[in-house]
């Protein structure tokens, strides 16, 4: 091989890392087949899709499905609920795992720390149906522990699951109960990777525990927090369909019906693929824009972003 390549051309790089590129192929092919090809399926959002005619022969209806979504009488209510519930969850639940991770990190007794970790991870593995069942029993008006306590304190029993003013708080609380413990994993990992010398240095300079947390731990895990926040915003329109579906009932639809549950109820048994796809596409567009926006914002404000 007498020819020499300019070291900056892609051919040079390709040749140099030939085996690496070769190994990349299966991954790229899989990604293409399973993640990009199916995207063409979104055309059915613009069709009156009929499974017997297939994607190619189904009739195109333009934006009809979107019109149906936006003009349906419940859409504003459902959209409002989605944003409110999601926002409440974001505000109340997002900071919790960070705080708990920091607190856990400060525990000296390893045995105690491990036990606490195991216990708070547990709820993550319980499915929503079970969680709903648990809370329905705990909060029952006839014989539920919480209402028994309320009654002995002289308070009227509260039908949490049936009461409009309480239901959203209930959603936030149960979501928190189930997800907060698991959410600490990422932050704990981030804290562990902080260089211990920083702490030593701080201690020599006379910093106390609180100062260590504020000036070392938090700044060090800030990129992780921002990353998690951006990812979390991407699912803003997913206010917890699975959770709400097993917990709500006609009395609280007004405050808890979100896009996911609405589509489920309306499309129920109708096999309305086009409509569901249209809703899915709408969700994706909003979520993607949110991610782009927060990413841009965090780049400007904190000089930290995911790309």
């Amino acid at each position, binding site marked *: 091989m007498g020819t020499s390549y300019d070291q900056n051309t892609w051919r040079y790089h390709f040749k140099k890392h030939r085996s690496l590129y070769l190994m990349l192929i299966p991954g790229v092919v899989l990604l293409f087949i399973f993640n990009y090809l199916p995207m063409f399926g979104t055309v059915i959002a613009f069709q009156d899709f009929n499974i*017997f005619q*297939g994607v190619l022969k189904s009739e195109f209806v333009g934006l009809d499905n979107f019109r149906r979504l936006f003009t349906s009488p419940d859409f504003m209510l459902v959209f409002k609920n989605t944003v409110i519930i999601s926002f409440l969850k974001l505000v109340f639940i997002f900071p919790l795992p960070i705080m708990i991770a920091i607190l856990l990190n400060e525990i000296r007794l390893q045995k105690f720390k491990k036990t606490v970790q195991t216990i708070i991870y547990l709820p993550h593995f319980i499915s929503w149906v079970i969680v709903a069942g648990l809370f329905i029993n705990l909060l029952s008006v006839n014989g539920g522990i919480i209402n028994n306590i309320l009654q002995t304190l002289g308070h009227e029993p509260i039908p949490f699951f049936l009461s409009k003013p309480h239901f959203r708080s209930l959603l936030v609380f149960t979501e928190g109960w189930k997800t907060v413990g698991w959410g600490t994993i990422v932050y704990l990992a981030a804290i562990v990777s902080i260089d211990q010398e920083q702490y030593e240095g701080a201690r020599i300079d006379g910093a106390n525990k609180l100062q260590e947390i504020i000036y070392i731990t938090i700044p060090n895990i800030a990129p992780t927090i921002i990353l998690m926040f951006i990812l979390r915003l991407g699912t803003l329109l997913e206010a917890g369909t699975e959770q709400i579906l097993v917990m709500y009932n006609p009395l609280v639809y007004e405050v808890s019906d979100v896009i996911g549950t609405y589509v489920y109820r309306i499309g129920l048994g109708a096999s309305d693929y086009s409509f569901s796809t249209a809703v899915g596409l709408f969700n994706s567009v909003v979520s993607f824009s949110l991610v782009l926006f927060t990413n841009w914002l965090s780049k400007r404000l904190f000089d930290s972003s995911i790309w």
Partner: protein
Amino acid sequence: MNKKIWVALLVMLLMITGCGQKTTDKGEKGEKPVLRQLGFPRNFDPNGDPVAKVIEDATGYKVEYEILPMENATDKLNLMMANKEKIDIIKVRPEQYHKLASEGALEPLDDLLKEYGKTLLEVNTDEAWKAAKIDGVTYGIPEQASRPFVSSAIAVRTGLLEEMGIDSMPETLEEFYALLVRIKKETDMIPLTGATAIVDEISGAFGVNSEWTIEDGKVKHIVEREGLQEYIEFMQKLSEEGLLDPEWPINDVPKIQEKFTSGKAAFMANYNWGFAGAMTEALQSNFPNEEIEMVMGLKGPKGLQGAFLQSTGVNFYIAIPKASDHKEEAMKFMDAKVQPELFKNLSIGEKGVHWEEKDGKMQPILPAFTDERNNADWFNTSTDYNAYREYWLLRTRKEHILGETFDKMQVQVDYAEENPLAMAPPLEVPSKYAQKLKTMMDDYIINAIFDKGSAPSYEEFLKRFMAEGGQESIDAYNEWYQEYLKQD
């Protein structure tokens, strides 16, 4: 070394591509092909079931059975049909039948029936065959519901009746109401628990049970009838006076059973004869020697009384997909299965082995009957309608208490209301909206009963109901009904 790998790869490749071309059993002339039958969701293994064996031995056809999944059954069915899977026989719900037929996925059966399905034509009623026709063409064999029956009542335990000194069950709405008030006053039990929007024993007192009725030659939906509003108002009164379980909207069947059998609730609506065995057992573990008594359809202020008569009309259609390679054989096979002797054997088994005659009634012999015929109905590809009315009763007698409860509930048959549209073909428009409208109505009723303050007015609800497919459905049924009247 390298060679070996290549050979191994080649073999694997062959195996993968080989899977694509499934060898279809054409069979030589005279030899019976292997048939594929697809049935509705149920959790059991049809290919290992004793009934499958009996069918194969008696008809000489080897059949591979497949079951639709519990979840998204219709999606799976549509997908299979759209992909032209080589299924020879499908047993599906009326709305699925209609959809598949109108998409052109099913084979017209009229000629095949004339040629190979003479018995099938005889054992099903003309009424049912009429229901099976879509634009004058038959695409499926109708399987009529076995026998109309009432399956609900309000349960109460005998011990409570004794404690309260009640020796006869309440028969009018007034008596029942007075009893609920007494329970509220004298005990700390929930007077009445339940899980559904409509309690048939109470709504019957206002003359409404069936979702659809025909009044003065017109098809009407239950929301158009005055009785429903009166029912809602009555239930609102009960709810306001604290006579209903406040957790009704989040109750489900296991929940109300638990409340009832543990003695937390005095009366339980939605009691079904199918619950009798397990619930009596659970009750007796808390209240030894007590039984479950029942409040039947109550008489209302205007003397009306009602219950819902279910299991009328056509439950299933059995069809042959266009993609099938063995259409004639499939028809021959189904015809063979309804020959009287074989049909009897398939449904209830052999005398002396699976059933016996006792007190003039056919009684199942246990456990042989449940072991070997429990899922017999899943395999049916048509019943012998008249014979099956009797055979089916054996299924209610599998447990003594079950049969007894079933028999008792049937006093309501005389005044029960049935759905006159059960025999109507599944029309496209109503099928599309049915589920949604039902949910909408139930949700509204529950909301109105338990949170009167926040629920919209009945007029508002009605307006929305009509706008979101209600009116369209009613019109579609009326159009069909006028056509139907002309036919006779």
